């Protein structure tokens, strides 16, 4: 069996949504299980008393990256068939600023706010309501933003191509950087006053 399973036709296209639903439920469960439904835990990243967000997401990134590189090398999957989201430079910058602002202000990112709603947190409910209001405003004013939204599409670029690096070298450096950050985060956590929550 050779992946990716759906583009290769191993799993029919019609199963796409079912699999997405199962993966989404699993993702939500792991978020809640690792304590991401608490906005205080997430805010720990900004105040320096809890770096679990950084650890979880960087571990996920380097694990998935190592898996893809090795699977591709073994011939178990064809990495060139993976869909890569096109990079819209302006949208990424402006959206990133808005998202970061909302993240620091509300203490949730979209995914964790839904896990918060699922366990009945009132602040998460307000955050999710705000999210839908934002979606509504964006959709209604789309003609205004359309120019910026679609400008500077670089296509599915890869960072190691832009840097002119081999993907394996970039992968190795990213692993080193992640491990450095993990130990650095532990160091900061020890220095900063413990917060009980």
């Amino acid at each position: 069996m050779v992946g990716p399973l759906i583009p290769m036709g191993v799993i029919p296209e019609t199963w796409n949504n079912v699999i997405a639903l199962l993966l989404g439920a699993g993702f939500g469960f792991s978020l809640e299980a690792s304590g991401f439904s608490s906005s205080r835990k997430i805010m720990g990243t900004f105040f320096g008393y809890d770096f679990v967000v950084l650890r979880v997401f960087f571990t996920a990134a380097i694990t998935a990256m190592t898996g893809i590189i090795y699977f591709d090398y073994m011939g178990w999957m064809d990495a060139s068939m993976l869909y890569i989201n096109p990079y819209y430079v302006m949208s990424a910058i402006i959206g990133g600023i808005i998202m970061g602002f909302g993240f620091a202000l509300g203490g949730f990112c979209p995914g964790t706010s839904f896990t918060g709603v699922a366990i009945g947190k009132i602040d998460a409910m307000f955050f999710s309501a705000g999210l839908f209001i934002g979606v509504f405003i964006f959709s209604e004013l789309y003609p205004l933003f359309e120019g910026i939204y679609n400008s500077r599409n670089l296509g599915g670029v890869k960072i190691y191509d832009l840097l002119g690096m081999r993907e394996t070298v970039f992968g190795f450096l990213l692993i080193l950087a992640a491990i450095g950050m993990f130990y650095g985060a532990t160091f900061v956590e020890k220095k900063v006053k413990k917060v009980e929550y």
Partner: protein
Amino acid sequence: MNKKYLLLTGIIIALGIGMLFMPQRDTDKQLRPEMLLAAIDDPSRFLSTDDITDRLVKQDPALLLIDVRSKEQFNTFEVPGAINIPVDSLLSAPAREIIGQKAKDKVFYSNSDVTSDQAWILCKRLGMERIYVMQGGINTWFSTIVKAVKPVETASVEEINLYQFRSAACQHFFGNSETKTEVATSTKKAVTVTKKPAGASSGGGC
């Protein structure tokens, strides 16, 4: 420091070092010059206007006609169902995404087949697949399909069939000019109502 973490760190660093010894993959997806030359020599990239018209009439979902002329020329006249990607924006990311679709037969056309063939060579060199050129371009399409010449009555069955196919296709795209005028005149016919004078008695009966 927790021993568990040291073990995990060791494993991921070992895997990372392992990566460095992997052979370098050929990331340069461009076609080698010898292969490009062989592809240019092969005339199978040219599709006739009749083949394309047949697929257009049958609404083949795998067919994607791409007009590589300028926007003004495209707006003046285009083959029905075509999209416009001027040859100077062929390398933009959205255009590459459209032409890179693997499930479609992309057919380039321009006024003749010179510009479209240049677009074909460029895309072929970038390693794109299932790309074709409309033979003779829109000029040939216009003269064979839109202005199809009626063969003489002694012509062969094939020629007459071809003519019938072409004129039927033309009617499919642009409608039949004869029936159009007929409809126009018949609707103009006014209905005249003749009223009986108020005092007139109904003829016959009781």
